[in-house]
């Protein structure tokens, strides 16, 4: 006969602390299903995913890599906007959709490269380096749009490339969702299965130890920041291809949610590290909260309050219990 130790209180505390995000997500979904009319409808969920989740998820994946490596990227908005701006300008100039997309991604790549150079060559810390790039990027947008005038391409003469993108789908799944899934798979493999992912974790935990272990710190950090910028660039193109316009500074709105989702996501790993799964849960939680609160009639400011309280609850539950059980 085997004697199994009774699960003790500590065990269950640990469990609660590790699954706080999942529990919170489940609770939030249940509450909104009961209280918010139209929350559990197909059209609302589809709208939620393709408009809120996709864009935030891709940016947050980039942020997960950067924060995982011990950095921060305040310039994701610039990558989004510049990529979107170049993309729209090139379409307006008559380029084919493919080249416009490449142009947009190239712009985002340059933002990442600028960050990498500032951080590696000039040894500026990531917070300040990306903050500087954020300021410069905003100015570039102002200068190239007469102080921030949006570019709308809603007239019929521009419709062809957008229609082509909008028609693209795989077995009925629209292109943006496919793109998101591909990004998730790619980042998951990179962070959790590849050698690069280990180096990222080492940089995040203790960069000096990484250096002494023969890891090329500068090279890997460059990849990290460029990857984040390019992922943001992809978002910029998805964003502007659905609204068929470029609105200056539209990308800045994603910054805090991306950082928030990443940190909320750290609560699901026992080591409290950023992870792809955790970040996605964080994204879903934030998106569902926003959507649900909107449906039950809270305005934007009260939504912010609600989300703030939720973040405290989740992280407090998770980290507080973790501390307690030590």
């Amino acid at each position: 006969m085997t004697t199994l130790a009774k699960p003790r209180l500590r065990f269950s505390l640990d469990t609660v602390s590790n699954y706080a995000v999942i529990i919170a997500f489940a609770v939030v979904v249940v509450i909104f299903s009961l209280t918010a009319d139209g929350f559990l409808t197909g059209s609302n969920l589809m709208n939620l995913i393709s408009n809120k989740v996709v864009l935030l998820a891709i940016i947050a994946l980039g942020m997960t890599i950067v924060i995982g490596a011990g950095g921060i990227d305040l310039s994701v908005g610039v990558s989004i906007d510049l990529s979107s701006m170049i993309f729209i300008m090139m379409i307006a100039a008559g380029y084919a959709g493919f080249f416009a997309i490449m142009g947009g991604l190239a712009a985002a790549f340059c933002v990442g490269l600028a960050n990498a150079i500032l951080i590696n060559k000039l040894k500026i810390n990531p917070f300040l380096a990306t903050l500087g790039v954020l300021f410069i990027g905003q100015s570039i947008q102002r200068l190239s749009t007469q102080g921030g005038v949006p570019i709308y391409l809603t007239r019929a003469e521009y419709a062809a490339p957008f229609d082509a993108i909008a028609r693209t789908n795989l077995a009925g799944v629209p292109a943006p969702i496919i793109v998101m899934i591909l990004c998730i798979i790619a980042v998951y493999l990179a962070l959790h299965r590849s050698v690069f992912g280990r180096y990222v974790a080492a940089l995040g935990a203790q960069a000096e130890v990484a250096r002494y272990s023969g890891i090329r710190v500068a090279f890997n950090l460059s990849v990290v920041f460029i990857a984040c910028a390019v992922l943001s660039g992809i978002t910029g193109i998805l964003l502007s291809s659905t609204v068929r316009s470029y609105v200056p500074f539209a990308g800045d709105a994603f910054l805090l949610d991306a950082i928030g989702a990443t940190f909320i996501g750290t609560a699901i790993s026992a080591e409290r590290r950023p992870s792809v799964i955790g970040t996605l849960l964080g994204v879903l939680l934030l998106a569902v909260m926003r959507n649900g609160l909107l449906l039950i009639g809270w305005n934007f400011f009260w939504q912010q309050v609600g989300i703030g309280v939720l973040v405290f609850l989740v992280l407090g539950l998770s980290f507080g219990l973790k501390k307690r059980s030590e």
Partner: protein
Amino acid sequence: MTAAIEMRGITKTFGPVKALTDATLVVQPGTIHGLIGANGAGKSTIIKILAGIYARTSGTVTVMGKEMGVITPATIEAEGVHFIHQDRLLVPTATVAEAIFLRNEPRFGPFISYRQMNRQASELLRQYFDMELDPRTLISDLSTAQQKIVQITRALANKAKVLVLDEPTAALVKKEVDNLFVVLRRLKAEGRAIVFISHYMAEIEEICDVVTVLRNGSDVGVVTPADVGIAKIVEMMTNRDASEMYPRREPVIGKPALSVRNLTVAGAFQDVSFDLYEGEILGITGLLGSGDKDLLKALFGQVTPDSGEIMLNGKTVHFRTPVQAVRNGVAKIPEDRRAHGVATGLSVGENISLASLDQMSSRGFVQRDAEARNVDALIAELGIKTPGRHTLVKNLSGGNQQKVVVAKWLSCNSQVYLLDEPTVAVDVGAKVEIYNLMNRLALEGKALIFLSSDLEEITEMCDRTLVIYRGEIIAEYQRGEIDANRLLAVASGAALNQKETA
């Protein structure tokens, strides 16, 4: 007489890990009380419970007759109990004087009097350790040994009634250890109680009046070293025979692996030349600040030499960064484990494979089975005490963290190994494991440079020993030509003139 410290029935669990089980520690005033046990026995844990860093799961703590409820670092310091922890570092951006007088700064009205503070700090360092150190030096610029001395000085400045030292002599050279012992004896004569943790049995024998032996989280005996002898104590703590301390090896020396010619780093060492052969263990020894550490740094690309040449297998190399050194087959076990050796936020497995992922991956993806096999083999081989390879390194005891560093470099198949104090904080049993591994590497044709402040280790393990004094190599000995005591004399420069005339 009331005991200075009385800890009874102490139990501490970390999740599923039971670090202490019903442990007892009773320390009388006016004694130096040794606390010994293998890596992971629970020494640091019981100390941290006393210090209020960990909350005990159960048990009672009495300090000078006063029963302590919940302990915090502030309440215990108020009772006059001071600690030099194994892994609590000083604030790296503070100056020496600021660190010594932290929370006890000499004041002028509401302001800190820096002039007075600096002067007093210099005085204390000179008075106790005979050390000339600019009190405005930043902590981050000090060596490990100097940081320890600053920590001890802080406790002295606070007039501690009870002083607890968790492995204070790790990485200290003999002269500093002697100074420390003079200080400890003085404190003892003044009626203070001292708890002293060390893996060096000779030190225990020399300084301790009584010893509590911990094994697997419980106290297995309180003995007087003078009565029972060290061999018996080692047996109590490890359950093994201590006679085979230094394993023998028949050296097979090959061709030169590393050649150094006229190497100079201004301000550290000058005109250093030597060869290191395949299959050789070469000891380098010198006093604190003699340039031995800087030499290793230059060989590992941490500092760029001002002149001279380094050749690897006959080819000149210029390492500008440790990365280049590692990629050319040079590995280094750094002295400062916490800053450079292990990433405490990563797991045991991630740390061990960090430097050798290239060998355990294909097309950029980690082969997790191969990695797990390799890691588990090394954990078993070195006897790393951990619940598994997924445990975070920060949850391991100090000595076991050191073994993780060693395991990391063993797994990466380098050609030249630079070992800077590899056995620091490692228990007697594990030291033998590390010696065995060094021997095995040498027999595989690797070339090893071995730095240690434990001179017996040097004379027993090395085929050849270079003595560096004030940045110059002043002597070279083959195995068996010199014993630890004479080596110390030579390294201190005392025997310099004799040697030259001989």
